[in-house]
């Protein structure tokens, strides 16, 4: 079995949750093997990250370089190509960094690229069998990959439960000397924080969240009326922001806000994983969607197959009736 590496991301020394998930995924590929973590960075931050990874991996490869202080995918790819033996399997989280790194890495390692893996069924000789999602999560696919010359695999964040085993005291091995000087055609300048909007959707207990099913900018008013009657805030999924119907600060998801409401009304939202990743705290989810196969129905508590443009005004009327009875 090929050697398995997990590339660990960290922010200023704070290791990402996916570090433990990649360790779990590695065991699914090779239950008897022992994956190796690779951590890059500089100074005290790198030391802190390596220390945080030691309980998860028996071996931690530390690559210290001032040029790797910010995780630039091109520089890290070049570093990995220098230190990873041919035929290895490299795991990385399927997030904005993994998407940047892994496809090109697979080319430079002459290895298979296996993107956004949800489940690993196991290896059979040179073949690795995994499950992926296609069509926005409407269908899954069994995929068979030839890993005889190695693989770069991105793992869906949250898909693998961290293992509950005894803490390891991993050995930190310094690989900095093998990397040498690195240059890249892309150079990091700065990170610009997301703009705060007029409404903070992260503070609301009830969200009326609209997706592509709202169909038109003018229909946003339908959701706003319901939210007004309920005392809720209007949030949305990505297509609504892409279409400029609502501002970015209203977007729930991995590239938007993370919300923790008590109740989440998903209206015309299909339920792509990037959207679901922004809903935390296990809220009660009511989903309304015209498509009975929409993935949102798999995670919702209650589902209604209906056109939100018809259903939401009906619900608004019911709320108003209730309020007027209560007022009397």
């Amino acid at each position, binding site marked *: 079995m090929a050697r398995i590496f997990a590339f660990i991301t960290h922010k200023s020394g704070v290791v990402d949750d996916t570090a433990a998930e990649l360790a779990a995924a590695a065991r699914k590929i090779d239950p008897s093997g022992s994956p190796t973590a690779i951590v890059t960075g500089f100074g005290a931050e790198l030391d802190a990250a390596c220390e945080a990874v030691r309980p998860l991996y028996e071996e931690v490869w530390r690559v210290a370089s001032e040029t790797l202080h910010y995780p630039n995918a091109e520089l890290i790819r070049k570093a990995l190509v220098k230190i990873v033996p041919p035929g290895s399997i490299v795991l990385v989280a399927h997030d*904005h960094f993994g*998407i*940047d790194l892994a*496809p*090109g890495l*697979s*080319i430079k390692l002459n290895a*298979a*690229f296996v*993107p*956004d893996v949800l489940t690993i069924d196991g290896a059979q000789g040179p073949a690795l069998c995994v499950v*992926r999602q*296609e*069509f*926005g*999560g409407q*269908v*899954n*696919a*069994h*995929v*068979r*990959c*030839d890993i005889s010359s190695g693989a770069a695999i991105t793992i869906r964040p949250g898909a693998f439960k961290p293992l509950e085993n005894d803490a390891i005291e991993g050995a930190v091995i310094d690989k900095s000397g093998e990397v040498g000087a690195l240059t*890249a055609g*892309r*150079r990091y*300048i700065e*990170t*610009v*924080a*997301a703009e705060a909007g007029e409404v903070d959707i992260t503070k609301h207990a*009830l969200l009326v969240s609209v997706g*592509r099913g709202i169909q038109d900018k003018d229909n946003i008013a339908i959701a706003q009326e319901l939210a007004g009657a*309920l*005392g809720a805030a209007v949030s949305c999924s990505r*297509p609504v*922001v*892409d279409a400029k119907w609502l501002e970015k600060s209203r*977007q729930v998801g*991995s*590239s938007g*806000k993370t919300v923790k409401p*008590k*109740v989440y009304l998903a209206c015309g939202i299909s339920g792509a994983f990037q959207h679901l990743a922004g809903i935390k705290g296990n809220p*009660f989810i*009511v989903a309304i969607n*015209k*498509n009975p*196969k929409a*993935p949102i129905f798999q995670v919702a*508590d*209650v*589902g*209604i197959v*209906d056109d939100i443009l*018809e259903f939401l005004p009906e*619900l608004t009327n*019911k709320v108003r009736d*209730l309020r007027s009875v209560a007022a009397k």
Partner: protein
Amino acid sequence: MEILVCVRSVPDTSDNEIALNGNGTDIQRDELVYSVNEPDNYAVEEALQIVAKLGGSVTVATVGTDEDEEVLRREMAMGADHGVLLADQAFANSDGRGIAAILKSFVKKGHYDLVLTGVQAEDGAAQVGGMLAAMLDYPFASLVNSIEVFDGSKLKVSREIEGGNKEISEIDLPCVLSIQTGINEPRYVGMRGIRAVASVPVPTYGLAELGVERESVGPAAAKVKRVDYFVPTMGNGAEMLSGSREENAERVLELLAAKGGLK
């Protein structure tokens, strides 16, 4: 600036129910409407806006079959100067790496300052742009949500990272960028626009014209193969309300009150 945009025709599944064929080897495609992959459309719009400011031309290319000429014509109706179909029997059933190898050969035939792709297609793999860049030894940035041209030799790009934050970098030309949706507002294409480009020739390049190595494409070269599709069952699934619209609305209201969602 000479810009190549790699596009793809995909079934429009945003509002449609997807069903599997009898043995799960494919989805039922007969009823589905094909259109340009959404992020690719943003990539074409971005290319058109850059060329409108700086001059140059926009070429759209797709790896596909004769039927995919339609998607090229749609993007040409938006304003792309040239459309090229990369089609050959040998290209069928290529994996992402095979597609990138075909595109690489096409890029090598021309002189492009900038190559754009959409961030991902219907398979959610987000792979071809990054692979193509590595094959060409060009710098790459994924999830790009703004482009500013510094000068003739480099760009300032923003990538969409977690929480709506933006990672700003400079990147040398030539480079490959994968474009995220929302970067711009793609222009509308009407029937008139489509008709206007109906007689513009769209050349087809195959294996021989491109100089693609046969062993780098097609099913034999594919390291990653789909075995079958299946419909996932995640969690317990929702309790589906099957009453009238009015009954359902009343039930939702009761639930909102019970779950603390009503103030």
